[in-house]
């Protein structure tokens, strides 16, 4: 039972990840509702390119989408991290799994910001 060794050390990552997963989940529910309203219920041509560009000129709208991007990327990659850590493979490679998924989260978020800023 060597795997039980070190279990008494205090860790902040897991509780923080669990709380942020719930917070990002709640944020997603609200922000996706806003996204769906804006793109499908507000006007008939909301997805036309010029309208998308027009919306992205608004700082408030950009802020909402940046928050949505942050919530989506964190929720997705932290979820994958939790799934991998649910296995013995994940337990054996915990540090690598944490770093890899965190890097993927940062990369996906940065790529999303890049795309948004190019609109």
């Amino acid at each position, binding site marked *: 039972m060597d795997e039980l060794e070190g279990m008494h050390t205090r860790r902040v990552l897991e*509780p923080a990840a669990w709380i942020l997963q719930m917070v990002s989940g709640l944020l997603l529910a609200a922000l996706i509702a806003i996204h769906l309203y804006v793109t499908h219920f507000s006007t008939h041509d909301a997805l036309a390119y010029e309208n998308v560009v027009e919306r992205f000129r608004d700082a408030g709208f950009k802020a909402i989408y940046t928050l949505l991007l942050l919530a989506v990327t964190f929720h997705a990659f932290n979820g994958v991290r939790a799934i991998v850590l649910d296995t013995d493979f994940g337990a054996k490679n915990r540090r690598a799994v944490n770093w890899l998924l965190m890097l993927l989260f940062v990369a996906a978020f940065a790529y999303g910001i890049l795309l948004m800023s190019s609109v």
Partner: protein
Amino acid sequence: MKVIFNIRRFDGEKDYWQSFAVPVFRGMTLLEGLFYIKENLDGSLAFRASCRMGVCGSCAVKVNGKPVLACETQISSVNSSKLDIEPIDNFRVIKDLVTDFEGFFRKHEAVKPYLIRNDDNYENPVELIQTPKQMKSYYTFSLCIKCGACYSVCPAAATRSDYLGPAAITAAWRFIADSRDEGKEERYEAVCGDNGVWRCHFAAECSEVCPKKVEPAKAVQKMRIRTALHAIKKVIL
């Protein structure tokens, strides 16, 4: 009337199914059926039992896919003329229905399942007063008999062998909820690791199969919230 006991056996190398026809009488328990086989049909059948009254937690087996205590399950209550009896899941099988509980008890031990006091004085012991309300807050969780039924159905324990599991976390919560205990800090740390409360998927099957209705799923959720709050407090303060 005879009931077929179809038992999954393991001889150390291979596992196989073997059927026995057991004459049953009204009120006969599964454990009595197993003893009948051992005494009359096949003396090599191995199973674990001790108190025969649902207290020691030794005789948990899987019957028709569901873990039960053999001693307190009447054959008639299963309502089937053929019983598929197997060792409980998520434990290494030693022989036939006997499983290895070493890891299970190591995990239990890791959460320090005993009252921790800063003022322990065995020469002059003092009574620790508790109100009925304070006792009620942990009483249900203190009924665990460590039979392993909850652990055997836990999907998180099935995929990750070092996961503490519902029984150990329930034991931790039993003492954290106890007003007399002063070892909360140590227990939070024991369950806070990535093999602790965070691995629970809240399938709640542990509560479903618990023969003592301890509600381990409830204990794990309470433990998880309390541990998260504790961790936040630690960071802020």
